[in-house]
């Protein structure tokens, strides 16, 4: 049980409000996940093949990804054999430990790379309808609150109403939007935006792009060009390339991470729509296989519903019920 205690101590150090919000957003995830887990432990008293099959199902239902689940299960089987664990209740902490291990591997990388006293350029990429524009609006709001001078570039010149959508966000949070008319070259918009950001001495430039499916070669090339233009104007830009992923997405998210990663050298992931019942388990698989860290999570539709990703809180959110039980056991 020491693992849970350690985890809990570390979490209580952090601000409660953030933890609360995280817990709120994740409550549905947690309910279904932990509920299933507890049921599993109750139903099976011995750790056998059937137990592992059931566990496999639980992880798969969280969209963790077949490959990652298989690896995890194999490791757990070994662990159970090595420690001679027969009782299902004893293996529960081992399971949690493994999950946390996977997530915590690169926790320190979860911070956004923000330059002090010079322009930071953040490029947003992703497939259609994952919430890129909304995420940019939320992030602009956050930076604005921190007193930064923010600009947004309306790089989605393709979808009907996309520029207007960003403009509404601009008005809402009080940030200027650099745009051209619909149908123009997104790379040209980026060029304009960088020039404007330089002359206005902006601190942060948030670049929106049109959603595109990763198997459209031409559109991916367009994206490469957008990035190239940014790099040409400012050598170390973009400082962050954030891939926006919808938490409801299944195994295709892996393909998205791979292809967008190749085209634009993705530096982090924004996991959106985590306030539904979707479990976002694909995070585990992507970290495991591609080592791209999650940097931000979207937990709702409000302006403040974008949070920094914290692996510990994520696990806490997933396992808070289990934590409670661990606590009670410790008190006894």
């Amino acid at each position, binding site marked *: 049980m020491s693992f849970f205690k350690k985890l809990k101590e570390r979490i209580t150090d952090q601000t409660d409000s953030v933890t609360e919000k995280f817990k709120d957003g994740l409550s549905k995830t947690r309910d279904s996940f932990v509920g299933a887990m507890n049921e599993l432990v109750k139903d099976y008293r011995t750790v056998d093949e059937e137990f592992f099959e059931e566990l496999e199902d639980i992880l798969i239902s969280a*969209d963790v990804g077949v490959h990652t689940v298989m690896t995890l299960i194999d490791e757990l089987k070994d662990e159970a054999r090595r420690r001679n664990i027969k009782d299902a209740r004893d293996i529960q902490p081992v399971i949690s430990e493994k999950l946390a291990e996977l997530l915590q591997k690169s926790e320190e990388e979860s911070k956004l790379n923000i330059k002090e006293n010079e322009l930071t350029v953040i490029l947003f990429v992703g497939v259609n309808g994952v*919430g890129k524009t909304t995420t940019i609006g939320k992030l602009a709001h956050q930076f604005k609150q921190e007193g930064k001078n923010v600009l947004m570039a309306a790089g989605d010149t*393709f979808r009907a*109403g996309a520029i207007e959508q960003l403009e509404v966000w601009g008005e809402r949070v009080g940030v200027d939007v650099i745009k051209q008319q619909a149908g123009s070259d997104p790379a040209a918009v980026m060029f304009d935006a960088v020039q404007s950001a330089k002359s206005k001495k902006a601190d942060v430039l948030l670049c929106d792009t049109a959603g595109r499916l*990763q198997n459209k070669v031409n559109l991916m090339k367009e994206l490469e060009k957008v990035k190239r233009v940014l790099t040409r104007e400012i050598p170390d830009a973009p400082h962050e390339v954030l891939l926006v992923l919808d938490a*409801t997405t299944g195994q295709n998210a892996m393909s998205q991470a791979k292809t967008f990663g190749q085209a634009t050298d993705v530096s982090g992931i924004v996991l959106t*729509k985590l306030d*539904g019942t979707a479990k976002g388990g694909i995070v585990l698989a992507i970290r495991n296989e591609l080592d791209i860290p999650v940097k931000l999570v979207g937990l709702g539709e409000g302006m403040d519903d974008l949070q920094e990703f914290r692996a510990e809180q994520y696990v806490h959110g997933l396992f808070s019920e289990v934590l409670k039980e661990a606590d009670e056991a410790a008190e006894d």
Partner: protein
Amino acid sequence: MAFEGLAERLQGTLKKIRGKGKVSEQDVKEMMREVRLALLEADVNFKVVKKFIADVKERAIGQEVLDSLTPGQQVIKVVNEELTKLMGGEQSKIAVAQKPPTVVMMVGLQGAGKTTTTGKLANHLRKKHNRNPLMVAADIYRPAAIKQLETLGKQLDMPVFSLGDQVSPVEIAKQALAKAKEEHHDYVLIDTAGRLHVDEELMGELDEIKEVTSPEEILLVVDAMTGQDAVNVAQSFNERLGISGVVLTKLDGDTRGGAAISVKSVTDTPIKFAGMGEKIDALEPFHPERMASRILGMGDVLTLIEKAQTNVDEERAKELERKMRTNDLTFDDFLEQLSQVRNMGPLDELLDMMPGAGKMKGLKNVQVDEKQIGHIEAIVKSMTKAERDDPSLLNASRRKRIAKGSGTSIQEVNRLIKQFHEMKKMMKQMSGMQKGKGKKKGGLGGMKFPFM
């Protein structure tokens, strides 16, 4: 973690069986495990998979597979058949009300593609059914959602009803219906805001819209990339509203689309349309049997053939065939053929539809560059008429001129000429072969899986 089709997955197991006189129950079990993994990788919900496997296993062990000479093929056949059955045998049409207008409500999660689909559906109704739909902008929450639908309306030159974002969606729907009656629209397409299925308040709003408009169709728009959660979403929307059909969007991506099976199995309503691209006419009827092949990673031959049928001019094809036989193919024909293939859609998409394409050497991760084809076109177009008819004229200086004229290099020109000659040679062989064998037997029915 590359996606593997069921065929590739089964190969390992099949190798073990090869040489054995009979397939044991254990072998079937192992194959079923592979089937299960293939379905899970395709995002079919695990509960649905479990039930499905149980059904298939029963059928498979019930002698059908064991006595078969090619057990692997048999298993795939059984799985494919069962999947198709699960997805509902035939396509279904969009409803028509007894008394117009027919009201269609579009519902779903955020970002599923409701607004885009609304525009596509309006276009479909006008083009294919000669209807006169009115689109209704009832998404007052997402910034510029109304503007998005209005822009689509402008593109299509079709009316969009909106009252801005300060009026309640229920009121908008009510007024839109009145207006549609007044102006004799026979369809009313209501684009509602995306919402989480667990959002009590917003789900209640949908109830009210349903109340005041009594729609004939409530279409749940589902992103084809949705994972395990598709079951929860579909179930909630269905229990709350009683959906009448599903539209699966973003199917032009490289997702397997197992969500289709999940959704179908929990709602038991047909998948009516598939969104196949960002263009306004990229909405197609849903074909269950093709989806089954796609989920299993077996290619989509039927769509390929259909595309070829609609886009290739028959007369020209005949002419080409004659030329192939007599072997007087010219660069002009080459160009012609190229443009016909291009009409069928992006090449990489076509490749995806070919069964076994994933297994062909070199083709596996091929990224077809449409630009390359542009280069070829430019090269051919830089040739004189005489050169196109008689490639043997192409000496070094002519090649140099062509390279300059097309903005390519001599190497590229040389490569193309070489390819052209090889193609001619191949065609000669092919036409010779066909003559010898007589008519090739069986179209699709005789098609063998490429790996056996």
